[in-house]
């Protein structure tokens, strides 16, 4: 089995696995990270979203062999070294922007990706950025509010 050297959450990780193993399974099953969630395996729901070089991307169809030197950030890698939450994480807590919370990883990561390029998004820009992220509980309006709050506090 080939070995891959990955940049994940600021550290170098060595993973030995089949070349077609999607990133999501590397993160959850090999690196034991809980942030990215399995929702569909079809890149349809956004639950598995991570940042690749700061840009939000689903990870469930992304083979490990395609990652190369890219820097991967998961939910676990957002807080500062001292443990201070990222503004988006804090805003989700403050706005109580979850019901079951299973989609929350994807919402937070996509929001961070959005704010990386657009620090002051309008409501419609937020909605469009989150189009690929499904929420079954209907926490949408709280999620939108959390992202607005995060943008203010960034």
């Amino acid at each position, binding site marked *: *089995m080939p070995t891959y050297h990955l940049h994940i959450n600021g550290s170098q990780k060595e993973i030995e*696995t*089949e070349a077609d*193993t*999607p990133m999501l*399974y590397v993160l*959850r*099953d*090999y690196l*034991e*990270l*809980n*942030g990215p*969630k*399995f*929702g*569909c*395996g*079809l890149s*349809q*729901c956004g*639950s598995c979203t991570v940042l690749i070089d700061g840009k939000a991307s689903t990870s469930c169809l992304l083979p490990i062999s395609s990652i190369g030197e890219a820097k991967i950030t*998961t*939910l*676990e890698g957002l*807080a500062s070294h001292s443990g201070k*939450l990222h503004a988006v*994480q*804090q805003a*989700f*807590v403050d706005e*109580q*922007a*979850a*019901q*079951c*919370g*299973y*989609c*929350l*990883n994807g919402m*937070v990561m996509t929001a961070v990706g959005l704010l990386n390029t657009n620090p002051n998004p309008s409501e*419609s820009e*937020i*909605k*469009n950025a*989150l*189009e690929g*992220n*499904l*929420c*079954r*509980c*209907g*926490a*949408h*309006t*709280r999620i*939108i509010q959390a992202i607005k709050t995060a943008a203010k506090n960034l």
Partner: protein
Amino acid sequence: MTAIPLRTRRKFLKDLGYISVGFSLLGACSGVEDPMMAERIAFEGPLPGSMGRAKNVNAWLQILEDGSIRVLSGKVELGQGIRTAIQQMAAEELDMDLEMVQVHLAETSVTPNEGYTGASASIQNSAMSVRYAAATARQELLGLASTKLNTPITDLLLYNGKVKSKQSKESLTFAELLEGVQIEREVILPLPIKDFREHRYVGKAIPRTDILDMVNGKAVYIQDLRFPGMVHARVVRPPGYSSQLISLDESGLRKEVSGVMKTVIKGSFVGVVTKREYQAIKAEQYLKNHSAWTATSTFPKPENLYAHIKMIATGPETVKNEGDVAAAFESAETLKATYSKPYIKHASLGPACGIALFDGEILHLWSHSQGIYPLREALATMLTIDANKIHIIGVPGAGCFGHSTADDAATDAAILALEYPGKHVRVQWSRHDEHSWDPYGPAMITTLEASLDKNNKINAWKTEVWTDSHSTRPNKDAGTVLAARYLDPPHRMKSRGYLGGGHRNGDPYYRIPNMTLNAHYYEGPFRTSSLRSLGSFTNIFALESFMDALAEKAGQDPLEFRLNHLEDDRAIEVIQKVKVLTGSQNILDGEGIGHAFMRYKNTDAYIAVAAKVAVDKDQGNIRLIKMWAAVDVGEVINLDGLTNQIEGGMIQAASWTLKEQVTFNTNKITSTDWANYPILRFPEVPDVEVAIIDRPNEEAKGAGEVPVPPTAAAIANAIYRACGKQVYDLPITPEKILKASSKMLHSHTNYSTPNHFVKAKNEPPLPASPLSKPPSPV
């Protein structure tokens, strides 16, 4: 929020007139100053259903060494925030900081057997049981302290895990008072409980603490559990419900897929165990490609679904009959309409997961099942082992809104763990299987007929409901868990489950002198079970759409027409509240606001919903702009948790109303992922606004299901007001709007008789299925 008087009619509470412990948060926390005493009032009953099986305090509540409290509840956390609500209840009655109360949810032989987490009953049962157990514990602790401190109870203070004498300032911790023994005392009525006016937690918007864990990526869900040496597994499900395995060639599996530990074949149940998760996915695909199965039973043609349902249904069974509807209809013109709803999925965002370990004696299971004790019974029957040899630990899962696939994944894991003992076996379902094998919310047809008297009030009403079972939840019948049906020999499901849910809210809450409710039950082609609000969703969509039609016939404002048929002040108040909320809205051309009302189950929470839409008349496109709800669930436990449930329920129901339906052809289910089972996405989500009417002196009722049923009718009524088109068959799509004729009462295109606002003597033709090919948009 509407202010309500502090002292109104009390059904069950009377003032005991004595002062007990009260509380000043600041003083208690700093320890500098003793708290004030809060008034207690006598609760005289009734006790919640869950207490029937567990009356003793220690079944619900344990005192730990450090004086903190562990509360035991048989309910499961599925995003509804029940953990926080239960924590509030115990902390309130025992005057403790919230952090001193931990909540242990759902574990066999540890927590009480509370059946299922469902029916919006967790607050009514579990949280209330905890309130009364905590209040009883308080009495016991005060009694013990009185003896030990030689002080009358009236001179004692109980707060934050200790009891203190006001005079001597001497205090004893709960642990010191109990000396290692838990409180076994039964909860007996009347019982002093804290006066709601003194509440510091209950009724407040106490934040949930688990959201912090979620944003930090802590292991919150069953999918996040990892155990040393844990292996992964997938089950190769048959191509259809009744397919049986003919042959399986696994000879090349290990060459093709690495990490395969074991293949398990038991009848038509096929599972594969691997070292890594992605290997299990590849192995499942390999086995799927290398197996042969018998053909499955066929489904009706989608365009014939509703005709098929009527053909196979039995009945009618009269559920309710008041006055003389037949006689009233004889002498009056009646209005009649038929409404329908397709099969809808639970469509949880997290596909089911189950983990099992057989240690040689006990089968341990981790599951997001909504009923761990009933699941244990089903597994005991299926595996022919003693229920005491099965230990199930409830773990949160993604929101699933009814009986979905959690029990089935646990069953898969149980079967595989017995075949692969000594290791934790984790079974993760695929999206395809989650969408395909989910027990759907059944398709329904509701036909309504009514007549008005000379004062334009409803004189007679008849509801006919066609419904499949709304609960096939696990019980001692092993056929209730999916995998059992494919073992050798197979376990067929013996009962039909709960049929009564289909006619829930089929009888209007309005005052109508002559009323009949009939139900026709069918055993349909798809697996079905309970989905949020059961039959109420279809029935209230029908009833509240029909109320607008009747109001138009009566020449009245739809809300005034409803108020003219209501006598219950709480019902009137939610309608008036939602009217105020929407009163200042500007309505542009092509926009409309629609309303709907419901009292859930006709006995529980009250809700009025409004929806504002814009409809593009050329394309039929619907834009949902905003939704409002005014809600009265009685006593509010967690204000923000309640608001969150109502907001989310309206958005979910909007998705059902505008987008969702199970699709199929005669051979198979075709809506197997999110592309062909679309749900509401962010750009389509409306604003929502919720007003809660708190009635702390009224019994607390559940909220989870409450916002769902009236949402569909509010949207349908808004669409009618926006464009004059009434759609009778869900989901309401642009194609159906374009197809509908533009006159209310005559617009039901599914009828061949265009004008059914006549004395309806003959059964009208059946509605066309939503799946029939829509006309091309204009």
